[in-house]
């Protein structure tokens, strides 16, 4: 009896990894999924905070895909290790602070380590030649296989027929004839395959799965590094960059202003780590001050806090301020005039 071969599949939650995994499952291979959490994943975070997102389906697409495929999924926190990829990408950044090629190589390397520790045989990804400008090109895909150490144990079922044979194909663990030769950015072949396999509900491509590909987010991260004088971050930093208006009136501090109740509630969870304030004479947002504000800065922040509340047209607004030790004080301020806020204060 032939040995049951086992593959680990990188599951992002999107259509490509769903299809790639299904093609291999259909060949009788035992597959388990692996999903890496970098802290920058769009998945999950964006649906949980803002009021306007309340009606969006609250599901983790990677878990959902695994359930549709009937496979186990292992979600792995790589936040700390991933820092080195973000801060020192050997192959540089894409259009924003996205280190896509280093990222893919790193994830495949982690998958290889996982595979070796559990005596699995090969790795599957949903990569397609020519689909991404940096990490999924004919000349960079071999770089991922080599630098990850996966070499010919890395199989890309959606484009395998247009790539050199890998070990699972050479050894006859999988039938190369049943793999695909997709290429380019056109999604029609994937959609047609999904229909052929009876898959109708899958996550729609929505501009990438990582906040680092987002221009506005990358700008906020670069601002954070510039203000602190060092390129570093922790999970709280990168979570807070996804929430609220970020306003930097002076280099030594910025305000994070909740935009609705959902964001105010989220920011409440962080408030004791920051000087924070809210209008107490009127309804208004919770505001966190990040940095080292002095008393003049706190006065300015209180005026800005008043501007973003219901009292923005009032003569005077009382703002309650809490320091990090839990002490509380009130300031009566004139709300900052909206038209006087320079555009470059908004990060």
């Amino acid at each position: 009896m032939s040995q049951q071969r086992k593959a680990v599949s990188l599951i992002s939650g999107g259509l490509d990894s769903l299809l790639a995994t299904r093609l291999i499952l259909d060949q009788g291979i035992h597959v388990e999924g692996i999903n890496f959490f970098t802290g920058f994943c769009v998945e999950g975070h964006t649906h949980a905070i803002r009021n306007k997102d309340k009606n969006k389906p609250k599901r983790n697409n990677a878990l959902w895909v695994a359930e549709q495929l009937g496979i186990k999924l292992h979600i792995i926190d790589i936040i700390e290790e991933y820092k080195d990829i973000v801060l020192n990408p050997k192959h540089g950044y894409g259009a924003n602070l996205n280190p896509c090629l280093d990222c893919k190589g790193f994830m495949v390397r982690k998958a290889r380590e996982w595979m070796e520790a559990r005596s699995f045989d090969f790795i599957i990804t949903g990569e397609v030649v020519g689909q991404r400008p940096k990490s999924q090109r004919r000349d960079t895909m071999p770089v991922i296989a080599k630098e990850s150490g996966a070499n010919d144990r890395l199989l890309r079922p959606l484009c395998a027929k247009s790539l050199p044979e890998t070990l699972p194909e050479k050894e006859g663990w999988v039938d190369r004839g049943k793999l695909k030769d997709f290429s380019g950015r056109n999604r029609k072949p994937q959609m047609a395959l999904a229909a052929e396999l009876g898959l109708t509900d899958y996550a729609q491509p929505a501009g990438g799965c990582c906040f680092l590909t987002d221009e506005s987010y990358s700008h906020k991260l670069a601002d954070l590094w510039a203000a602190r004088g060092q390129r570093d971050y922790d999970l709280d930093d990168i979570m807070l960059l996804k929430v609220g208006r970020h306003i930097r009136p002076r280099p030594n501090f910025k305000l994070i202003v909740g935009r609705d109740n959902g964001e105010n509630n989220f920011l409440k969870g962080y408030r004791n780590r920051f000087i924070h304030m809210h209008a107490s004479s009127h309804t208004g947002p919770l505001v966190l001050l990040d940095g080292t504000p002095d008393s003049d800065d706190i006065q300015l922040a209180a005026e800005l806090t008043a501007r973003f509340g219901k009292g923005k047209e009032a003569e005077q607004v009382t703002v309650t301020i809490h320091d990090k030790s839990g002490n509380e004080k009130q300031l009566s301020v004139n709300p900052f005039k909206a038209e006087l806020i320079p555009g470059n204060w908004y990060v």
Partner: protein
Amino acid sequence: MRQQLDARNMLCPMPVIRTQNTVETLLPGDELEIYCTDHGALNDIPAWCRINGHEVLDKSEHNGEVIITIRVGANG
């Protein structure tokens, strides 16, 4: 044995990751009460349980907090 896990002020998928890592330290039949503030956990933790063979015993919401109780499956 019943254990508690505080996953409040964490967003998806951190509550799932913490649940997964805690379950690895438990035995089949043990129970885990998970406290979350991300309501996405109401879908994600049960989905994680279904694909990994664990049982959801209870789901409830109180004052914006979600409490999910699970029992570790035989292959826990």
